[in-house]
């Protein structure tokens, strides 16, 4: 039967001389072509030709890592466009934000998309971290990928934090003032670190320039590299984690046992397992179209959500930054509010020790966890201790963040958010 018109049109084009020179594999019609499509495409070849059936289960990964990646793409695209109007100068930054809102076509929409995607990305990276923990997917051989993941988490926070300053309004200025002050509490290196971040002693033009450079090129560049390594390791570690089955090969072929032919070709040298080794044929599924199409659907869904938020809710823009007029209270961005709450109890314990220990624990986690079981399942019984500890820490962080967000008012005093705010007699 005739395939529908777009497909026929595409097939015709793919077989012209021009088409054949661009697309080395047309729309895959056979299994061979399906495998070739993945390998011969620069965009697709970071993914394997076949994946395990289990990896496609939405209920397993919830697609959280992919959502984070999609948000990264959306942020990059909207961010590059915004760069054509934004000026990183203390005199002009705020004005360019107003201009984006009022006189630039689609300026408000793009700015909103950028802001909401940024908040969502921090959230989804955190959710992804939790998912990987609860499914034990950081265990051998995936320890180092977890470490890269923690690094990416820090990159995400860094990107969000550096971007937060750029509008140069009261919200931006004071959030970064609070945030860099927390950084300054670190022992020995704290004040030097703060000085380096700010390019001086106060949040001013130098800080804005540095944060802009970090935000648009340094951090995205490093993050992009780390993402590539992160995805590459997924492949080399045997695909996404899944429940162990008999016959799964986990050991790697030692390098000494090179074959006799010594051609040093790729197939001889490549170490590590591929998803196909030791897997039942009915468990393996071609990436084209199953994986790739699902990824496309997810990207459409993420785009739809970001667009929806951007159309109906505006990103905040407060008054022009005024260094002599701090708001009361001055709050850090939401992902640091838990830290700010801790810091209000003790600068050192809350600002340095606890977060320092947390990050160290996260990084070293796969090497501290000797229990090799419980991989590939949510809340596996044999991991109840680890899961409990993690959940307690997670809930604590959430509670602290909630307190910092809703229950703290002027002078960081306790307020009940359901009571009406007392009428301020000063000011307006």
């Amino acid at each position: 039967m005739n395939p529908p018109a777009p497909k026929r049109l595409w097939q015709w084009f793919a077989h012209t001389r021009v088409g054949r020179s661009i697309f080395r594999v047309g729309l895959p019609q056979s299994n061979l072509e399906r495998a070739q499509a993945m390998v011969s495409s620069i965009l697709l070849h970071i993914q394997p030709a076949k994946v395990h059936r289990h990896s496609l289960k939405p209920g397993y990964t919830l697609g959280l890592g992919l959502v984070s990646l999609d948000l990264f793409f959306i942020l990059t695209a909207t961010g590059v466009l915004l760069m054509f109007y934004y000026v990183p100068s203390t005199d002009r930054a705020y004005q360019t934000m107003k201009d984006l809102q009022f006189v630039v076509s689609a300026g408000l929409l793009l700015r909103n998309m950028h802001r909401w995607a940024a908040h969502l990305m921090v959230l989804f990276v955190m959710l992804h971290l939790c998912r990987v923990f609860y499914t034990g997917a950081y265990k051998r051989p995936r320890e180092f990928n977890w470490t890269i993941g923690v690094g990416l988490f820090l990159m995400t926070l860094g990107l969000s934090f550096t971007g937060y300053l750029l509008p140069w309004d009261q919200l931006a200025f004071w959030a970064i003032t609070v945030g860099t002050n927390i950084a300054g509490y670190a022992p020995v290196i704290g004040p030097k670190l703060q000085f380096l971040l700010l390019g001086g002693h106060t949040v001013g033009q130098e800080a804005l320039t540095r944060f802009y450079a970090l935000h648009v090129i340094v951090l995205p560049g490093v993050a992009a590299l780390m993402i590539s390594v992160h995805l590459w390791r997924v492949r080399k570690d045997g695909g996404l984690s899944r429940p162990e089955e008999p016959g799964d090969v986990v050991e790697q072929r030692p390098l000494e046992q090179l074959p006799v032919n010594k051609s040093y070709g790729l197939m001889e040298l490549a170490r590590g397992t591929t998803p196909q080794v030791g897997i039942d044929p009915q468990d393996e599924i071609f990436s084209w179209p199953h994986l790739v199409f699902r990824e496309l659907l997810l990207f459409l869904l993420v785009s739809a959500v970001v667009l929806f938020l951007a159309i109906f809710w505006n990103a905040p823009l407060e008054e022009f930054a005024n260094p002599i007029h701090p708001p009361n209270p001055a709050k850090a961005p939401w992902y640091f509010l838990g830290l700010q709450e801790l810091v209000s109890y003790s600068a050192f314990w809350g600002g340095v020790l606890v977060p320092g220990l947390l990050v160290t624990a996260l990084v070293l986690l796969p090497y501290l966890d000797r229990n090799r079981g419980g991989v590939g399942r949510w809340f596996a019984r044999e991991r109840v201790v680890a899961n409990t500890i993690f959940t307690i820490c997670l809930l604590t962080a959430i509670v602290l963040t909630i307190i910092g967000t809703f229950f703290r008012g002027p002078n960081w005093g306790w307020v009940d958010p359901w009571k009406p705010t007392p009428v301020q007699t000063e000011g307006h």
Partner: protein
Amino acid sequence: MNPPTGPAPNPVSRRGFFQLTFGWLAAAFAVAASAAGAVRFLVPNVLFEPSQVFKAGKPDDFLDGSATFLEDERVFLVRQGNTFRCLSAICTHLGCTVNRADHGYHCPCHGSVFDDQGNVKSGPAPRALEWFQVTFSKDNRILVDKNRRVTAENALVLPAKV
């Protein structure tokens, strides 16, 4: 060897056909609209340069028979009697600012000479100097529009005052 696991040739139902076409059309439209939106985004709606339309001043600010140089706008405001014209001061050769001579204009960069009408008398300039539209604004000022080029004959003529 694995048995082939490709899809069996399946007849596409009417619903499937519509779904497919609409799906691709919608996705293609979304992509095209986003690209068009991004391009439109990059076209500035306002400029932060001195405006091309400006007020040169009141008629009485200019003496009869004068060609007054307005530095910021790089034009000459020429008055003869009650007739006002505006001549561009940008040499058509390589863009230097021309100077007023006793009769006509002279470019200091490569020696182009223009007459009072802006036509090239000598020198490397390829074209005559441009005249801009002059009108009278609602608040009684000379209004020059550098977006509109006119011929040398085009001028603002004010009613003679007693």
